[in-house]
């Protein structure tokens, strides 16, 4: 086991991934630092989601290496790896036959936590994501889209993972709910300091939530920039993004939790 640079929690080292003859990701090098929110920004098919799935080994690289906490994914126990990483996706994927409580408590339960500790954890998490305690006994079909995604976040946080992977988690929500959840995400992240990899195609969201923004195009990493740098970048793709999103981006970058 080689030791990694102390601050890099996730490392992509010359990672390529292809399906049949289609190159989805090539020569991908990226480091995600402890406690930061790294946004993967790019259009559909740029390889954002693929990169994310390489981290929790839902996919394995064709060549190159992905390391989590200094250990190559190829060598780690996949079940333990995944349980140490929270995973939130756009379609949420709540278990429709489980109550909210069972959805959130599933991984702790599998890991053999005692029942009273699980229910205490569920109550705590519901509060953390801004849901009332009586939500615990409801079923996913009884919740609104925003509530469902809150439960999805709570479920991902259940076993207190150090790393959180979020694949367009707010993409399917209406603008008001999205705004609300983005704000709460920032507040939560200020408190929890997870290492987050956040996928989006929305520049506004990237500027608001990201510590750094990794811009992707056609399976390659174009550049990695802080939000304030992004707006003034001379990179042609970055400036094309800025033009496409138009006015008011400056305020998005500095908006934070307001």
């Amino acid at each position, binding site marked *: 086991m080689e030791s990694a640079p102390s601050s890099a929690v996730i490392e992509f080292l010359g990672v390529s991934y292809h399906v049949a003859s289609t190159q989805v990701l090539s020569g991908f090098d990226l480091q995600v630092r402890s406690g930061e929110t790294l946004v993967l920004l790019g259009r559909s098919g740029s390889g954002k989601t693929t990169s994310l799935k390489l981290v*929790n080994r*839902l996919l394995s690289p064709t060549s190159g290496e992905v390391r989590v906490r200094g250990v190559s994914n190829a060598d780690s126990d996949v*079940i*333990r*790896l*995944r*349980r140490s*990483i*929270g*995973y939130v*996706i756009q*379609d*949420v*994927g*709540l*278990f*429709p*036959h489980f109550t909210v409580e069972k959805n959130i408590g*599933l*991984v702790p339960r*599998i890991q053999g936590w005692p029942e009273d500790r699980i229910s205490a954890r569920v109550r705590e998490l519901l509060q953390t994501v801004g849901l009332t305690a009586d939500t615990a006994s409801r*079923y*996913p*079909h009884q919740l609104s889209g925003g509530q469902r995604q809150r439960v*999805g976040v709570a*479920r*991902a946080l259940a076993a207190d993972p150090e790393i959180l*992977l979020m694949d367009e988690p707010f993409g399917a929500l209406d603008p008001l709910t999205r705004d609300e959840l983005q704000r709460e995400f920032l507040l939560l992240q200020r408190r929890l300091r997870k290492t987050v990899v956040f996928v989006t195609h929305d520049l506004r969201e990237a500027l608001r939530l990201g510590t750094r923004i990794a811009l992707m195009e056609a399976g390659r990493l174009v550049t990695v920039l802080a939000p304030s740098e992004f707006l003034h970048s001379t990179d042609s793709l970055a400036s094309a993004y800025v033009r496409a999103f138009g006015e008011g981006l400056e305020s998005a970058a500095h908006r934070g939790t307001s």
Partner: protein
Amino acid sequence: MSIFRFMLQNRDQILELTLEHLRLVGFSTLFAMLIGIPLGIVIAHRPRFNKPVLAGANIIQTIPSLALFGFLLPVPWLGERSDRLAILALTLYALLPIIRNTFTGIRGVDPAVVEAGLGMGLTESQLLFQVELPLAVSVILSGVRVAVVISVGLATIAAAIGAGGLGEFIFRGLAMVDDRVILAGAIPAAILALTADFGVGWLERRLQVRR
């Protein structure tokens, strides 16, 4: 003499043959579930096998039942007891709906749910028993329901090889050209089929997951 009086007079024999009939259907459905559900699960997870397995079950289904009973007659251990043979034949017929519905039910589970489950670190068997099967159970049961109803009907033909069941009345009635005797077999068989259809259907609705 009315049919009902005839049935009343022969109630002991009707009861006995009904129980025999139930035994044939019960065992064959049980065996078909024990084979068909695991097979359906396997082909849902290993798409390579789904065509050959479903094609095989389909082909069995196209063999005329009387011919299948006949084909199996010379098989050593089976041929000794006609009820064994009947149970095997009925099992083979029940396979298709059960395999197909298990396959469809598991493949029909929302991919986002499967992805979330894998992503949070469920093992394949945890995913199967805690997520996929509970979500597929009503679809699987609707396959079982079809299988049972088919079996109740087919089992009447088992009487042709001496396996007993309500078919005895039907064949006897045909030979005697007596409608009452035919109906004494056909009516209880129809009631059995409807009851099974209703019973499994009720279970299916009970276990249906709202989404």
